[in-house]
């Protein structure tokens, strides 16, 4: 699966899920989710799962939802794992280096649009 195709799938899922009521587990915020530079922020693991946990820690995405089209932790991991190796590195590095405020997009954390997440667009096709 190419990166662009993966993003398209993710975006289609988001679009179909928009506005739907559902049971969502948002997850717990890490110490640096809010508060700016005064708060300590540990490095994210440079893996697809680690990068997606950072998105949960920052309140950018939720852990799971009964709406399968929502962009959750599981879809995040599957999406990044489907990227080519170079694109995967860029996305993971971008997420690890970003502040939480940079990672959150409209609808975060329950119903984010992955197409708005600049790190997911970083690697290109």
């Amino acid at each position: 699966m190419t990166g662009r195709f993966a993003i398209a799938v993710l975006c289609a899922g988001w679009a179909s899920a928009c506005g739907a009521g559902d049971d969502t587990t948002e997850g717990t915020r890490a110490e640096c989710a809010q508060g700016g530079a005064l708060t300590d922020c540990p490095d994210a693991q440079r893996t697809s799962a680690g990068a997606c946990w950072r998105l949960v820690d920052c309140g950018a995405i939720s852990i799971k939802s009964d709406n399968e089209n929502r962009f959750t932790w599981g879809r995040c991991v599957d999406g990044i794992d489907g990227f080519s190796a170079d694109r995967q590195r860029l996305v993971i590095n971008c997420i690890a280096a970003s502040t939480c405020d940079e990672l959150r997009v409209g609808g975060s954390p329950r119903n984010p649009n992955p197409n708005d997440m600049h790190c997911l667009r970083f690697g290109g096709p």
Partner: protein
Amino acid sequence: MRATEVLAAAIVAAAAAFAAAPAPAHAQPADVPAQIKLLETQPADMDRATWKDKRRDAARKLAQSRDRRATAVLIKLAETETFDIIGEIAIEGLGNLGDPAGAPVLQKIIADPSRDKSQKDLARKALAKLGDARPAPTPPAAPTAPPSPPTGPTSPTTPTTPTSSTAGSTQGAGPPSGTPRAATRAAPEPPPGRAAPPEPGPVADGLLGAGPSSDVPGAAALPAVPDDALAAYERITFAGGTANLGYDTARKRVAFDADVAGHYQKRIERETMAWGMDVGAHVVAGYINPDGPAVTRGLQLDVTASGEARFYSGRVYGIGKAAGAAQANYVSDVDPGNPDNTLKDTRFTADLQIAIGGGYGRVLDVGAAIRVRRLARTLEAAHALGKPIDPSTARRLQLTWWALRGERSGYRALVATVAILREAGVLLGEPDAGLSYELLNALRDSQLFLRPSGLDLQLVFGEGYLQRPDQPMANESGRVEQVLASAAYGAQVDDDKLELSGGGYARLRLFAPDNTPAPWALGASARMRRFAYGEHGDPLGALDVSADLQISDDDLMNSQIGQRLTGQLGFTLWLNQASGVRLAASVGEDRGALFIGAELTATYGLLDGTFAR
């Protein structure tokens, strides 16, 4: 009347001048017996550490008293207190007392090959003060007895515990003694049960080669650390990261990505003040250009800086902090098939914050001090420890390692360490191959970095301005006030082979405007690490167990209070140079979602046995 007033004023002035005049260097006679008693007997209502300090003060006062009743006491201290600074106070004091009865013991110290150079120099100066500046007697050719064990307390800051080098004894986490190797050393054969130190001094030649003193950084090359520093560190990571570039004619695709970071940290902890700074930069860049109009390029630049200063009164401190950060992102992703999906986005965020508050205690990184202790244990196990490593030698060793940290190999660190230990009279004789290997293992042990010790509790109030993009609307933007609490704990126990550490944090936004969330979060963690070493100081593996608890609330409409509990286990054991076992497992629960992971890797084999003619 006027003459009377003038006379009275003159008398008063004279009396005042007399009172203000420097008192002669005579102590109160009644003080001498009291000071002698304090030196010899620990008061029942005084703890040992306080008594050590008081003894030193008493020795100084006796030395200034010029009372000959103090001579015998100072002679005894000069002869027996070879490991505590009080011995040097006594040596110096014998010169100040001016009693010729002190001359023989000073001559004896000058002639004693087991004594430090600094002690001998002090004795020479004291002897000169007594009017006896005759050259010191030539040391006897035969090895002399080692310094007597201290009869009094040793320095509380002495980083080593052993005070004798009794054959067969092992202390601490260093490699076990195994077969005693004292006889294989170049050092003279010690009498049964005792190690006889050769004359300490620069190493002439031996296993580590001649003239190693040139490998010992001079004082000017050592890092500038204040004399009263409790701890200090400087960490530099420059241009750490990866970069990849690829092109192939099959797909006609160019791909480039880079993740580069630089980091600088410095911190100095002193008794009454501590300060630290942390500056970093991080760049992530990418360019992917496949065949066709599609192209993606992006750049992310992150710059951070923070600093803090603490002012202590005992264990309690006041603290001021400042932090700033800026991040710029640029992403351009051209979708040739769908122009609506093309993204060109530039974002900028910035933080500028200050905080003030207070706290209790401090946590220090004691890794370098542990390395010194390991050296002492290694020497003792090899029956090559002439005396404990005193604080000044420990400081010199640590600063020398600091100065040599940029070396490509560990050769200079080893040679400098041996030279310093020999010069201080700690290392008896030239180390043989086995001891050199064990010393090198101690110097190269990467498990001795970031070893926390102490307790630190802190509460601060923060005020700052956060610049955030308008879209999407940030939960926190503009002025943000918050209260931050943190706790940290670290302990190195069981001869530094077991580390217990933990921490906690809590954060709450204050004074949030109406319709603006006031998120909060708190968490705690605990960790245990057990390190294992082989017979000769080789790291054998480590066991790492940790647990974390986090609770948070975004304070948004329909948001949930989150709680996450995670635990990790890691175990590594190297069976031989080609075999090992690695077990890693983790379990986490976040509002009913359970995550379990485990990994077991085990390999067994031997290094290749090869021969070629």
